[in-house]
């Protein structure tokens, strides 16, 4: 049982990025333990999938983010919330804070602004 928890938690402790193309029409296809951002609305287009923090998003997603999903795993002391910032290195305005299990599909006003994100124990 502990092994199960350890495996689920491992994603939050490691740092990594996965690039993929989303084919989902509705659900946000984002692995457990990860934060995902897509270049198009409603979890479409190119997907960037992070297991850790990223202080400077790559050019293929920076200021091109249109939908987001936090699939972090909760646990005591675990950073499972995601804060997205409009500037690199978690500076500038915070555009959104997502709790585990929360997604944001698209909005014309709130679009193409993200440059960095950080995992936190709360918002």
């Amino acid at each position, binding site marked *: 049982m502990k092994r199960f*928890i350890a495996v689920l938690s491992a994603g939050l402790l490691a740092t990594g990025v996965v690039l993929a193309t989303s084919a989902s029409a509705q659900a946000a296809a984002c692995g457990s333990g*990860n934060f995902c951002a897509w270049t198009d609305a409603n979890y479409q287009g190119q997907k960037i999938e992070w297991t850790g923090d990223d202080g400077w998003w790559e050019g293929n997603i920076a200021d091109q983010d249109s939908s987001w999903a936090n699939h972090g795993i909760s*646990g005591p002391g675990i950073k499972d919330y995601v804060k997205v910032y409009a500037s690199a290195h978690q500076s500038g305005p915070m*555009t959104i804070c997502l709790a585990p299990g929360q997604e*944001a599909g698209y*909005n014309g006003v709130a679009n193409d602004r993200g440059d960095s994100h950080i995992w936190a124990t709360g*918002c």
Partner: protein
Amino acid sequence: MRARTATALAVLTLLTGSACTAGATHPAPPADDVIKAATRALTDDCLTRRGLTPHSGRQRVSDALFGTGRAELSLRLPTGYVVRTHTDGCLAAAQRRLYGDQDRWFRTSVVVNNLRPEAESAGRPLSEVRAAHRAEIAEWRRLRARALTTATALLEGGGTTHPKGNQ
């Protein structure tokens, strides 16, 4: 006592132990950690009842944990973002158990979690935005208190199995 609940309790014991001083009585662990430990215990039991193992694949675990299809709950923030969540996953079931009302917790916590983005977006002081949302903040505290009570009882009693259904 179920193994996962025991694990959650062990984590809480460690947290409590690290926070106490020599010779003093053990302080209560942070409320946030108690609720998160209970959430973990509930969701892990739910995943096991759905037949998932560490080898099931991250997307299968993600679908079971966070839900599938179109997200049922939705809230538009003053910043323009529309935040959504599902009601069919193990996490949703855990939130219903702990907070009593997943919909209300979702709507309240999304607003409270995004007070700073709202203030920065509108160019207003955070204190002013907090004052404007004092009803939501009060509700957030009430729901958190309920969750803490439920989580504490659940972890102390070791009963994470939902009395109805398999969520």
